[in-house]
């Protein structure tokens, strides 16, 4: 099925699902796709992961009215979390709920029941020139909506469990919207899992609005099968005095492309971007991050780490823009990689564009092997080579895993990583 067919189906179904303030973006976005010759179009941003390598192939669109709830045993156990499930992109919570400070549910329902807030933010953050984003805007028919009212400190984490479960090669998409009001506090966990052996393609997009002085923690884990391809884009906008932690952990997935764009548009914002990639076999992971320092006196810290084995490929492209007005910016970026094997590859590229003069910026990238001195030290204490490797790798990963606030979720991620390393 071609993307034109997918668009036609979406155009048909969208009328009954969404109001026109959402559908009105579809045509223009699809023109962009059509006119670019997608997916063969070459974009510098996608140098090491050409769009064609992601979007070529035969995929069927998901029917938003058809899904079955998978077995709970496949999910991480986070006992105190509020849970939202999506199956093949479709949010299966069929009401908008209000719980522990969160208002949440399917975007389809929210687009009517919370019209004011959805209309205000929907497609106001996403980069419509990015082709996967444009495709999402043109054709996505489902998504998750999460909002926290001003001044509300949520008391439990909210966990979104995105499951891909299909026997056929499906193309699923979701367009998520998160709105955190002034002075609110919230923790979001997003878990992307696949319980399908079919080749699947996912193209998700999230818009995350963080109002004045809000504190938001967002942890995402990708752990799907080798035949899955997953593109995900986060567009974050931070207002004065807000702070944001983004932890992006990629364990499984045949191809994972994550775009993370943070716009610091008012002063005194604080933003941390953490990433961890554990890849082996023929996995291909590509992280593109963009931090836009558009206001003075903001700080960003970025730390991305990877452990690569076999023929895995990892790309890190970290762009930081400090605009002329963004005086007293502090922006730190670091990318550290461990190659366990000569067949694995890393492409790392910092991209700093600094137009203000009173700034503190640093960046650095390292690529190495596991420390041999440390290996021998551990072995000399009786620790087997494989356990010593595991300890060193977990030690390397811990710097990122320690940022996961929820202990149960951290345990889940650790067990996934350990299982992967042990194999």
């Amino acid at each position: 099925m071609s993307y034109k067919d997918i668009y036609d189906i979406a155009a048909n179904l969208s009328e009954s699902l969404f109001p026109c303030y959402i559908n009105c973006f579809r045509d223009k976005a699809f023109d962009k796709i059509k006119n670019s010759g997608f997916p063969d179009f070459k974009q510098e941003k996608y140098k090491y992961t050409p769009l064609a390598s992601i979007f070529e192939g035969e995929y069927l669109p998901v029917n938003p009215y058809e899904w079955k709830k998978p077995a709970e045993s496949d999910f991480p156990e986070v006992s105190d979390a509020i849970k939202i499930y999506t199956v093949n992109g479709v949010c299966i919570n069929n009401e908008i709920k209000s719980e522990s400070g969160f208002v949440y549910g399917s975007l389809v329902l929210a687009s009517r029941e919370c019209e004011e807030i959805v209309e205000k933010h929907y497609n106001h953050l996403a980069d419509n020139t990015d082709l996967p984003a444009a495709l999402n805007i043109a054709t996505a028919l489902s998504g998750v909506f999460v909002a926290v009212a001003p001044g509300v400190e949520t008391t439990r984490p909210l966990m979104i469990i995105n499951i891909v479960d299909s026997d056929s090669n499906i193309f699923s998409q979701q367009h998520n919207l998160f709105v955190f009001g002034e002075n609110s506090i919230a923790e979001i966990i997003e878990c992307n899992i696949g319980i399908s052996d079919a080749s699947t393609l996912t193209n998700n997009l999230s818009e995350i609005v963080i109002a004045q002085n809000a504190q938001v923690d967002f942890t995402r884990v990708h752990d799907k099968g080798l035949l899955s391809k997953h593109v995900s884009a986060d567009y974050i906008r931070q207002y004065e005095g807000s702070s944001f932690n983004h932890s992006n952990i990629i364990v499984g997935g045949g191809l994972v492309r994550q775009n993370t764009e943070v716009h610091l548009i008012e002063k005194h914002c604080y933003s941390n971007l953490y990433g961890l990639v554990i890849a082996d076999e023929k996995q291909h992971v590509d992280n593109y991050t963009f931090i836009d320092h558009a206001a003075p006196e903001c700080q960003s810290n970025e730390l991305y780490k990877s452990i690569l084995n076999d023929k895995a490929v990892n790309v890190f492209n970290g762009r930081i823009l400090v605009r002329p007005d963004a005086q007293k910016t502090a922006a730190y970026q670091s990318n550290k990689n461990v190659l366990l094997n000569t067949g694995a590859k890393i492409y790392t590229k910092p991209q700093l564009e600094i137009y203000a003069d009173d700034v503190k910026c640093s960046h650095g990238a390292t690529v190495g092997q596991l420390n041999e001195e440390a290996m021998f030290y551990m072995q000399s204490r009786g620790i087997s080579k494989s356990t010593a490797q595991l300890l060193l790798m977990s030690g390397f990963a811990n710097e990122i895993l320690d940022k996961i606030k929820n202990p149960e979720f951290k345990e889940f991620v650790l067990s996934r990583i350990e299982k992967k390393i042990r194999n």
Partner: protein
Amino acid sequence: MIKITDLHANVEGKEILKGINLEVRAGEIHAIMGPNGSGKSTLASVIAGRDSFEVTQGEIEFEGKNLLEMSPEDRANAGIFLSFQYPVEIPGVSMTNFMKAAVNEQRKYKGLEPIKPAEFLKMLREKAALTGMDSTLISRPVNEGFSGGEKKRNEIFQMAILDPKLAILDETDSGLDIDALRIVSEGVNKLKSPDNALILVTHYQRLLDYIVPDFVHVLYKGKIVKSAGKELALELEEKGYDWLKDMDI
């Protein structure tokens, strides 16, 4: 316990050990002294099984086993312990996890179940007290940011936990302050028994005041050139190593 015969070892094609002969029996304490660069740490590393050193000739027998055929971890589990001259920092790995892994591997080797958490914690506390190890260091990553003396003390703390048959202490005294030297030495003496043995690599008599050796050897240019009783260390302290230059080596 250990018998080293005509041991030759190279590093990067250069011969460092040029025919070492040394036998240590259970219950004995041997001190190895000698000028910088003479091969003391190399000998210690070869015994522990570091593979960057290539053994070109000779044998090491440890309790009837051919040590040179064993992996470093098997040697450790068989009862060999090396206190490193330069302990290694391992970021991200806590002392607790490190020691738990080591203890459990040792137990597995002996056919025992993994240690129970409560028992393990009790053991950590006891051994920390025995060796004067600050207990806050135990929750930190292995050696990371430890002071020079703290690192050395940590080596002896690990030794106390693993309770080896043969411990080789490579300049464990250097970096320790006067009080720490006494406390650590007392700890080592408490661990000493007729069933285990010690090899002390040191430059100074003061360690040997606390841990009294049965034999003192001088290693020079990859060979043991002189062996005698504990009085040799005092003699070296007085005369230095100039006399070696007059020897034909």
